[in-house]
């Protein structure tokens, strides 16, 4: 297997979207931009193709699919197909040279971080965004588990939602090449999302952060009420903050090594999961990411439990914000009014000078 089928994040960038998939290209681009991204490498989409072809999996799948026909509305039928196709993919062993190449990268990663059998996350990376995400596996340790999980990521291209979507689009069902990102697990104390604008009104002078204790999964999936901060993008002043009652978090179970959902003890629920220092540092990083990409971003990040500030802050994903960025901007001030008109407005209206309610008042 050609060595270039696996690439370190610092070897790739946004221009390698088709080669390694969007998420990998993005992690590469962030690494290049000098951001603190968990170290790791990308398997190109070619590895996926290579795996399915050389193991004969694709032949078996085509054979099975030659007799498969179902209305895209027939969910149950596609569920059955998923079961078969995934079983085919996951029953195949990785070709030796492929396994060696991945293993040598994994070893290099262990060496680089100084951690034996380093825990990694294996994340899917399609060249285009798909409705219905492919799967991600967290806290993967050791070479043998890594191989198994990479195959599982690949086989997740046969999950039911994706199959139905491909059927609707008239795309081949047996084939959807994706890249895989293998990156160091952040032992997250807290994690969450960050928008480089105010998601409520599109105000571009703000940075908004949502966070929960533990791994970022609970925030990304939207299953918990999150702590929220609004930061001024220019001065990095924390303008508002909301401490939510956070009831559950995703953590790695130290015994099983699996990611589990646990209850947050009452006394910890309303404690803000970030310090002001961390909030401001995140905002500064967010502003830098936006500047790098030249547009508003929707970012995922995590804060490591063990590392000291600010080395504990990691960016794990960024993508363009799409809700407000695509809207046409309209003026909010009346350009026909002079300063004197404004002064008069204020005098007539009275009390409006302080405008909005001050934070913390009158809830």
């Amino acid at each position, binding site marked *: 297997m050609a060595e270039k089928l696996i690439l370190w994040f610092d070897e790739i960038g946004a221009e390698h979207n088709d080669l390694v998939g969007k998420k990998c290209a993005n992690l590469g681009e962030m690494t290049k931009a000098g951001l603190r991204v968990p170290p790791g490498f990308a398997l190109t989409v070619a590895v996926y193709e290579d795996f399915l072809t050389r193991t004969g999996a694709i032949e078996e799948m085509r054979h099975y699919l030659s007799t498969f026909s179902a209305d895209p509305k027939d969910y149950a039928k596609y569920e059955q197909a998923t079961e078969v196709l995934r079983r085919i993919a996951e029953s195949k062993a990785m070709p030796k040279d492929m396994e060696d190449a991945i293993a040598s990268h994994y070893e290099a990663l262990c060496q680089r971080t100084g951690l034996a059998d380093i825990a990694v996350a294996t994340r899917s990376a399609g060249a285009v965004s798909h409705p219905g995400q492919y799967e991600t596996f967290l806290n993967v340790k050791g070479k043998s588990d890594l191989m198994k999980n990479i195959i599982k990521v690949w086989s997740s291209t046969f999950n039911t939602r994706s199959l139905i979507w491909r059927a609707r689009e008239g795309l081949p069902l047996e084939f959807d090449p994706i890249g895989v990102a293998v990156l160091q697990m952040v032992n997250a104390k807290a994690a969450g999302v960050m928008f480089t604008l105010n998601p409520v009104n599109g105000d571009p002078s703000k940075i908004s952060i949502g966070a929960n204790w533990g791994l970022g999964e609970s925030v990304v999936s939207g299953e918990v009420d999150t702590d929220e901060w609004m930061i*001024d993008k*220019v001065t990095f002043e924390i303008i508002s903050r909301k401490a939510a009652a956070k009831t559950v978090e995703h953590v790695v179970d130290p015994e099983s090594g699996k990611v589990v959902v646990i209850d947050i003890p009452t006394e910890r629920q309303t404690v803000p999961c970030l310090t002001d220092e961390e909030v401001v540092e995140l905002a500064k990083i967010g502003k830098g990411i936006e500047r790098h990409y030249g547009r508003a971003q929707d970012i995922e990040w995590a804060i490591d439990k063990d590392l000291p500030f600010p080395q504990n802050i990691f960016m794990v994903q960024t993508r363009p914000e799409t809700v407000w960025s695509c809207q046409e901007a309209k*003026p909010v001030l009346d350009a026909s009014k002079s300063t004197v008109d404004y002064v008069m407005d204020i005098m007539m209206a009275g009390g409006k000078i302080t405008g909005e309610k001050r934070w913390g008042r009158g809830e």
Partner: protein
Amino acid sequence: MAQERRFVDPHDPSLDIPGTEGWQEMYPYNHLFRKEDPARSYESSQFWFCDVLHTPEPMKPLESWIWIVSRAAYPTARTLCPPPAYGMDRRILNGYNYCGNVPERDPEVQKKRAELFRVRTSYAYKNWEALYDVLWHKKYIALIDELKSIQFPLFPEFEDESVVKESRGYSSFLPLLEAYSKLVNLLYRAWCYHFEFNTLAYGANAAYITAMKRLFPGIGDKSITQTVMGFEAAVFRPPVELQKLAISAVETGVADAILSCAKWEEVPPKLQQTDAGRKWLDQFEVARWPWFEMSCGIGFYDADSSWNDSLDVPLTHIKNYIQALKRGESIMKPLEEVVKERDRVTAEYRSLIKTDEDRETFDRMLGTARLVAPFAEDHIFYHENWFHAVAHRKFRELGRFIVNYDVIEDPQDVWYFNLFELYNVLQDISCGWYTGTVPLGVTYWPPKIRRRKEIMERFREWRPPAALGPAPDVITDANVIALYGVTTELVDTWLEAKEIKPEEVTEIKGYAGSAGVVEGTARLCFTPADISSLKAGDIMVAPTTSPTWAPAFQIISGAVVDVGGTFSHGAIVSREYRLPCVPGTGTATKVIRTGDKIKVDGDNGIVTILERAK
């Protein structure tokens, strides 16, 4: 609920302080709440707030001249004609100043006023450079020169023969009365000049804030201020002059000699002994006129005095700066740094505006806000400090004059006459002089002054209510809001405070005046004299502050102020010293006690009482 939005009526007997009966005669009749109608019913229907920003303490009769004069000199009501209001009505109650906004409710009249306001205000903004930067400064300095030239020489035993030969016709009593009248007239004139640009400056500032809040919902007041800062202003000069003197003292080797002096009177004899010392004294002499015409307080009280009248004060500042220099700290904050940060912040906000149309409006409004901003800082030096220092010196000169004719024993007793009584006293002395009789005041005034001193003592023990009369739904004067920080919200806080027991309060809300969070021991300071009680790291809790409370800000770790908004002195100075500050709390000095452990959250404008003093 309606009847709850009401403070105590200004005529309520509960406001009478036992033992002060007859206090009203200390002040002119038309500056008091009246017992008779129609004044009484107007006063009862009006909302009055206590002007603790300017008068945190009761005023002696002559100290009330400022409010007598400024009330009459408020010219913008009929010059600029702001459509919804005529400005401030004022009353004195138990020595305290109460302000009431006088609205115009007739839409027709409002319309007429609006037309005038538009034309006149636009003209003033367009010609600001000529009207303010050039003409205002010129006429203001000329006024102070004229004030300084007024003299009150003692009467001669016999008039000079020129009175006869040159057909002068009058004797020295007339120049005395003329000099006093001139003094009074100049007080009125100065206050007219003071108000000339007030509404324009605060209005443009408020308009800009409103626009910024619309462009960037939730933007902090502090960030808005940052886009306007970075200009030279007279009020920034005095500290700079002190810093320059400290630096020069260290560089020329006279620093230790200065540090060894506890009082200013020890400094000249010691420094006269060396060349470097004499040179430094010359520098000091140049710097102090006019830059040490700074009030040691807020400039409205006799006791505030000025640096020039109490050189121990600038000496203390200089010694503090010398010590900071010796610790290796840099004491001067270069303006270029402030300007650089202002330009960065402004450029960034500007680039975040989504449409070109809004960007143009923003540019226009920022331009006006920056144009007028220096006025806010300039007039504080020229008027509140320099002019008041000179005027108060004139009153003290009058005191010394009157002592010579035995009407008062101590020159400082002059402060127990009011502005109009003084003319009468001078006339009484004049008659006594030329008829060779004893002025009647010799027996009339001493018991009265003793009584007035007793009354003042009682006044000082009294806590004035924050407001009187019915609370309005909204406040409609840009000055009231921007300068006094009296907003609808603050009034609500006062209304709540009526109900609360101070000892049960654990949290007070105000403005985010200056960023940062600090915990420490609270110390209440009602006057600049209380600053000496502050210990390093204390959190100062004050009814109001002014730039001349500067020594406090070098010691404290945070500030909490009853009144004022983001543009108030306390907030501005705190930002300079990078201290957390929460102004506009309304009730801090009533709720917090010296010794309480408190937390000042300047990021959010919240003060938390962590632990009560035992």
